[in-house]
């Protein structure tokens, strides 16, 4: 009788486990598999396979870090932001529009040395007239107008493009400035695209 009483919970536990999700893989084994998956990568590309601490934390937490971890990520990422030396963050919105449209750069199929775009429209609505926009990120239509074209709001935009994780740990948005995908001038031009009074993004 005692044997049966013990056996039932053990068996039902086993059956439940069989239907539950498989347990998570050992991170060391995952990294070993990843390294083997990209073993033929050219030398110059190897660094992309290796994670930095923020990528590692966001991957393991599936982009939902605990509050203390999130705070640590944001503090670390905020420390990477470099503002323009003269403090001006507004560039040319026309060039910004082209950068927002441009999805080139960074792929192994790209010609070497091709300038990267921001590919902003892949994820965001921006100029309301552009209908071919993604929905992975929030709409940015009328962004500057909704913030009264404020100087501080413009600095926030510059910082957001430079490193989105400074204000939102594990944000899906690439850290364009930190990872040197976009340079200072490109980030200023995109900031203008969102913040300039005459930008079509803020058209009435």
């Amino acid at each position: 009788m005692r044997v049966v009483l013990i056996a039932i919970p053990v068996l039902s536990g086993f059956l439940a486990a069989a239907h539950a999700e498989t347990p998570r893989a050992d991170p060391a084994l995952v990294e070993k598999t990843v390294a083997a998956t990209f073993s033929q990568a050219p030398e110059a590309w190897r660094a992309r396979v290796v994670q930095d601490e923020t990528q590692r934390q966001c991957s393991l937490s599936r982009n939902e870090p605990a509050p203390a971890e999130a705070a640590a990520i944001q503090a670390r990422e905020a420390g990477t932001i470099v503002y323009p030396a003269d403090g001006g963050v507004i560039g040319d919105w026309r060039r910004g529009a082209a950068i927002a449209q441009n999805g080139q750069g960074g792929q192994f199929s790209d010609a070497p040395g091709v300038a990267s775009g921001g590919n902003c429209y892949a994820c965001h609505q921006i100029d309301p007239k552009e209908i071919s926009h993604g929905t992975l990120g929030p709409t940015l239509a009328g962004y500057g107008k909704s913030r009264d074209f404020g100087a501080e709001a413009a600095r926030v935009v510059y910082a957001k493009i430079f490193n989105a994780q400074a204000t939102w740990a594990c944000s899906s948005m690439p850290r364009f400035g930190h990872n040197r995908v976009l340079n200072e001038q490109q980030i200023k031009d995109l900031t203008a695209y969102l913040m300039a009074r005459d930008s079509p993004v803020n058209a009435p």
Partner: protein
Amino acid sequence: MRWVSISLLLLLVAVVPVAAQEESEKEIERYRSMIADPMANPGYLAVDRGEKLWTAARGTKNVSLERCDLGLGAGVLEGAYAKLPRYFADADRVMDLEQRLFFCMRALQDLDTKDVVARRFGGPGKTSDMEDLVAFIANKSQGMKLAVPLTHPKERETRAIGEAMFFRRSAINDFSCATCHGEDGRRIRLQALPNFTKPGPEARETMGSWPTYRVSQSQTRTMQHRLWDCYRQMRMPGPDYLSDGLTALTVFLASNAEGATIAVPSIKR
């Protein structure tokens, strides 16, 4: 000429205004059913070539692949693809169809596989033995339900590795697979993005329809190619062909697509 007009139509659908989206989707559905006809889908040319490759005596041993065990016994084709990837005791490894074919080419045929790997992805004037064989073998599971086994501990471990890789962020844009395929109802530009993080119709629709004839590439493509292309878009280096990481991702995706009806080779933009 016919393929040109179909590709133009499929490309047009990718750029039409959202307002016209619904009407276009009806149109594309009509075209899909039209070209799903084996007489119209060029993917079936790959099926025919694959059948010849399966039965051709090749390699220093001058034998065909017909003694290759794809999981259901030597030479059994019907239903084999529906249960791949799976664990193979003779290799002590979880293998997808291409890894298994590669294993058989070496073990059974002693084939010089350098050429097979060089032609892993077909292109203009260059067919791929692997794409052709996969099209032929997958088609032998036509109408069956996808049921990738997760009984062997290595199969479960492989699924877990694949799941972790799906969420693993890396490279200059911090992307993981989940960046684009982690939520319901999202788009890149106008392209709808299936959510692969959970079991459901989106995972089933996708995994049940590969291999597929890509009109924009004029080639029949396998999941190995699709994942290679995903990593390209993620700004990662190209993953190694036949690597265990791609198989792990495939197992994870297939586990969320359990019960999918296999309809291959399909045809996509």
